[in-house]
């Protein structure tokens, strides 16, 4: 077990003069919880300290250290809230768990809030449904306000707001990458399979994580093949300016950044006159669009619907429109439910349908679906290499056990963050297990133009 802390860049430039301003800002932000949102306000007042969440937290189970115990992290702001916003806290102080804020605590705030993977397992098992990830995000949001977001995260947000993608790729680089993918597919199948770009009036607007174009592009190729087989290549498009649904505003806790990052995508969908925004294999991107932006009406009523590409493909598999040669994926394959797809969006069956259709030996890990263990890199942690030891030996420990127990040789995860974390996890522990996406498997097994007259799976 490593002793490396989840410590990230902390400021050494907090001068005396600034301290008071920072304290005031932090306390005001905590006081503002009194005005909502309702969940957060309830969480400030409800925890019974029963200890159930700790038994379900990937970090605490990975290493049962006091600082990883979820209610204690939440108490960082809960105690200050009690001190300033509850009658009992004002009157009785520490007797009721109230305590005032001290700027010296901020270093601990950074460490503790960036050692929560935001997986929401605690909420699933808490008798009161307390979602500690909401509190973690609030702590991070307050840190962001006073400029204490870890540098890695700050950089990703900045790049994403400037270039509309977290990799900082230009439209030109994107087009070059797409041309490369088309070439790859020509090599694989001997025919032209197009990936349309910037087509106004296309029904489907595909928004992947940029990683599925630039790093692990097989998923995007898989989807292009699906459209090709269906004879719908002229019905979809990607955008050379909006090709990354990843949105780190969710992870830094800044609502302003999250919305600023999101807005160009909605505008682009409107400009393209799209009917369906087809989100890629990226859990938090889909969650923000489907569970936050759309029901929250950030940009009013939308002239398009939002679905995930796995739902779309699974539907066509169910209708028997796609055919596969399972022998192309003969090794055992296990599906990892990304927290943001399974627990937070309820997309659990569609990826399984795709994998069962395209793989000869599909397996489950246990528990799965809504109760699946986090990969250990959730809430943006997988992008932070300065806490690699923490991710490999603590937060990812439970996941490693699950994957090894499944006996699989390939882990399919519908999420760029999970894939990065799992890839590193498998390599770090020398498991020899490959990691990839769901449409990646499909891409390897799908029959184009029904050449070999393969049997139908559905």
């Amino acid at each position, binding site marked *: 077990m490593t002793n490396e802390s989840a410590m990230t860049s902390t400021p050494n430039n907090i001068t005396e003069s600034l301290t008071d301003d920072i304290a005031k800002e932090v306390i005001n932000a905590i006081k503002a919880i009194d005005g909502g*949102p309702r969940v957060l*306000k309830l969480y400030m007042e409800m925890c019974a300290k029963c*200890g159930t969440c700790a038994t379900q937290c990937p970090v605490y189970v990975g290493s*049962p250290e006091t600082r990883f115990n979820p209610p204690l992290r939440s108490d960082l702001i809960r105690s200050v809230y009690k001190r300033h916003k509850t009658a009992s806290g004002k009157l009785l102080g520490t007797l009721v768990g109230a305590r005032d804020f001290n700027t010296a605590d901020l270093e601990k705030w950074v460490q503790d809030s960036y050692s929560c993977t935001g997986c929401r397992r605690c909420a699933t098992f808490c008798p009161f*449904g*307390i979602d500690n990830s909401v509190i973690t995000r609030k702590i991070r949001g307050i840190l962001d306000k006073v400029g204490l977001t870890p540098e890695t995260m700050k950089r990703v947000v900045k790049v994403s707001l400037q270039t509309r993608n977290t990799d900082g790729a230009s439209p030109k680089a994107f087009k070059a990458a797409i041309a490369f993918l088309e070439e790859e597919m020509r090599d694989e199948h001997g025919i032209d399979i197009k990936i349309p770009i910037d087509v106004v009036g296309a029904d489907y607007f595909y928004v992947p994580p940029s990683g599925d174009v630039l790093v692990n592009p097989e998923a995007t190729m898989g989807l292009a093949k699906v459209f090709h087989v269906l004879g719908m290549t002229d019905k979809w498009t990607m955008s050379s300016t909006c090709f990354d649904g990843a949105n780190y505003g969710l992870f830094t806790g800044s609502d302003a950044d999250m919305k600023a990052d999101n807005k160009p995508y909605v505008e682009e969908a409107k400009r393209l006159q799209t009917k369906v925004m087809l989100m890629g294999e990226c859990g938090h991107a889909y969650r923000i669009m489907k569970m936050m932006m759309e029901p929250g009406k950030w940009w009013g009523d939308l002239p398009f619907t939002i679905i995930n590409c796995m739902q779309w493909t699974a539907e066509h598999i169910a209708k028997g429109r796609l055919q596969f040669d399972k022998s192309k994926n003969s090794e055992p394959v296990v599906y990892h439910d990304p927290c943001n797809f399974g*627990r937070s969006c309820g997309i659990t069956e569609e990826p399984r349908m795709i994998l069962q259709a395209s793989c000869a030996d599909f397996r489950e890990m246990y528990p799965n*679906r*809504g109760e699946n263990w986090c990969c250990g890199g959730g809430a943006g942690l997988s992008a932070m290499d300065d806490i690699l030891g923490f991710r490999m030996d603590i937060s990812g420990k439970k996941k490693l056990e699950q994957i090894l127990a499944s006996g699989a040789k390939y882990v399919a995860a519908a999420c760029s963050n999970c894939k990065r974390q799992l890839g590193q996890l498998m390599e770090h522990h020398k498991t020899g297990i490959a990691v990839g996406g769901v449409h990646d498997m499909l891409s390897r097994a799908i029959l184009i133009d029904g050449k070999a007259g393969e049997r139908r799976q559905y």
Partner: protein
Amino acid sequence: MNTVKYLVGVILPYVVVPVFFAGMGYRLWTWFKSPQPARMTLFPAGGSTFREVLAEALFFPSLFRADRVLWFLAWVFHATLALVFLGHIRVFTGAADRMLQAVGMTPKGLDAMSGLVGGAAGIVLLAIGLLLLLRRATIARVREITGIPDILATLLVVAIIITGDVLRFSEPFDLVQTRIWAASLIAFSPVMPTNGMFLLHLALSQALIMFMPFSKLLHFGGIFFTQTLIKRR
């Protein structure tokens, strides 16, 4: 001494009841008016909102899946509390007895049943209360998060259970006297109770009731809000 007895038995009831209802109402109202921009749905999301939230409040299924031992302790504790709460109706009014006699119970049978069920409940509550305290002290993950308010709340509840048990087991308890006292409170011409142990039990219970809306014990109302918010669409 009589001043204290007068405070606990005559004055405090008129303070506790309004404080509890006003406090609880105030908390519910602040939760209710607080804005809710988007639901924090957790999947698998339930189909029937009311039924599932009620099931969660009555049987704690989430806890059951996570920690069977705590589930057993917590569920038996709460269920017994509810039973004891119902049993206390007999302490305050003879109406319950009359109703039960109307359906065929003899006064003697009634006392026997009350003694058996109530006595067992008192022992179960005490045992589980102490086990919950022991759990806080011995299991690291629980000890780490246990603060002064958690210990105080549990100690208060255990003290109420102990005084209640003493009342039940030490001598035949005079229900007539408490019924007269309760009726006198309602008639706004209170008589002062004299039994010292009863007054201690009463004082502690009133402290708990008054404390409830302002402490973590308000989960008894909040659970309907949080579970509705988090698990359902």
